[in-house]
């Protein structure tokens, strides 16, 4: 019997990010004869590209889009850069922006669409602020210019608390109660597998360095269309946070997604599809 294969394939690409060599893992899927609009997907803090596996296997999407999802350095199968053991990992607005642009550059993507979730959504806003002309469209999931913290990140990396289990237990509440248990637990599993201190290091960008208040007012959606979608059960980036952000950006399209939380693409892929397909249709038109 022939093997049952998912359509995406995984490879490693060599990138220089701010002059430092990296080996970055990504998966992609697209039209069988090549082509397709490049769509780069950015996972949430402390997770990896598996969050997008349903999108990468969706025939309706990959017949028109070349979907690429990479693991950020330190995440998933992308190892930290050489010498990582000598310091503490901290993602910054500058390093995250450089990472996304380095990936798109190394892959020679022509004006890709970028869709990011949570920290990925926040960096999408920064791409809209500083680099809009490089992109065909930008989609920010669970994103806002700023959010009020809801716990002390010191709990995420200390020897007397299991890092993977506490990360997963904290974020479990960000998943909507309607999400199927199988998808909920797969989403949690990815959090249980993060490297020590990595989720915490990502949140440095989210909480300390990545405050985009005031800056979002400079976004020009005539240069690059921007879409904001947030799940109603996300109490980290609330619907109100996203709506407040959208109110400052003329021309932005914003939606609050019912019965979804902070991880729409992995916690309830079928429900998320109802929201993201019309957006992708508009972009592909």
């Amino acid at each position, binding site marked *: 019997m022939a093997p049952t294969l998912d359509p995406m394939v995984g490879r490693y690409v060599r990138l220089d990010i701010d002059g430092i060599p990296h080996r970055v893992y990504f998966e992609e899927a697209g039209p069988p004869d090549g082509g397709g609009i490049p769509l780069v997907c950015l996972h949430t803090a402390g997770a990896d590209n598996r969050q997008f596996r349903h999108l990468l296997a969706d025939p309706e999407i990959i017949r028109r889009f070349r979907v690429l999802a990479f693991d950020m350095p330190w995440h998933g199968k992308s190892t930290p850069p050489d010498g990582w053991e000598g310091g503490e990992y901290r993602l910054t607005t500058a390093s995250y922006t450089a990472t996304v642009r380095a990936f798109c550059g190394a892959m020679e993507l022509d004006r890709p669409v970028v869709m990011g979730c949570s920290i990925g959504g926040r960096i999408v806003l920064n791409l809209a602020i500083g680099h809009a002309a490089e992109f065909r469209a930008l989609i920010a999931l669970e994103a806002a210019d700023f959010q*009020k913290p809801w716990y002390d990140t010191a*709990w995420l990396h200390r020897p007397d*608390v299991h890092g993977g289990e506490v990360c*997963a237990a*904290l974020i479990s509440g960000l998943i*909507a*109660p309607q999400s199927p248990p199988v998808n909920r637990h797969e989403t949690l599993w990815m959090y249980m597998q993060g490297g020590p201190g990595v989720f915490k290091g990502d949140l440095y960008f989210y909480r300390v360095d990545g405050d985009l208040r005031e800056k979002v007012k400079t976004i020009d959606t005539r240069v690059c269309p921007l879409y904001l979608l947030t799940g109603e*059960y996300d*109490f980290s980036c609330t619907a109100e946070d996203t709506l407040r952000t959208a109110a400052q950006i003329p021309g932005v399209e914003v939606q609050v997604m019912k019965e979804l939380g902070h991880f729409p693409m992995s916690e309830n892929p079928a429900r998320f599809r109802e929201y993201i397909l019309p957006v992708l249709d508009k972009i592909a038109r």
Partner: protein
Amino acid sequence: MTPADRFARLPDLLAADTDLRRRGHWLNADCRIDIGAEPFHLTLREGGLADFARGPRLLRSVAFSLHGTDDAWRHHWQKVPAPGWHDLFAMTKRGAMSINGDLRPLLQNLQYFKDLLALPRRLPEAS
């Protein structure tokens, strides 16, 4: 049934959940859970309730205490809770719940405690 009356059913609910007790196997902690104005003292041993005391216990020491308003618990224990009431930290963020004391046993066993405190959802809906 008041929220405190619902919470009073916790020993039976936990006894019926062998998987939650399995996951709490390494947990030993004393804590106080306030359902509105009514305190409950929980003595947790190896994931089970060794003691469960309703009402004030003067000078009883606990590792941590968790206080939620009646309204918070009522919302939290709906079969499908509304956004903002569906998680302990959603409720602390909105000011309907507070957690005090030594949070280490709570964070070391966070999913256990979240699931434990959601058990009254399994009871019939309050009218």
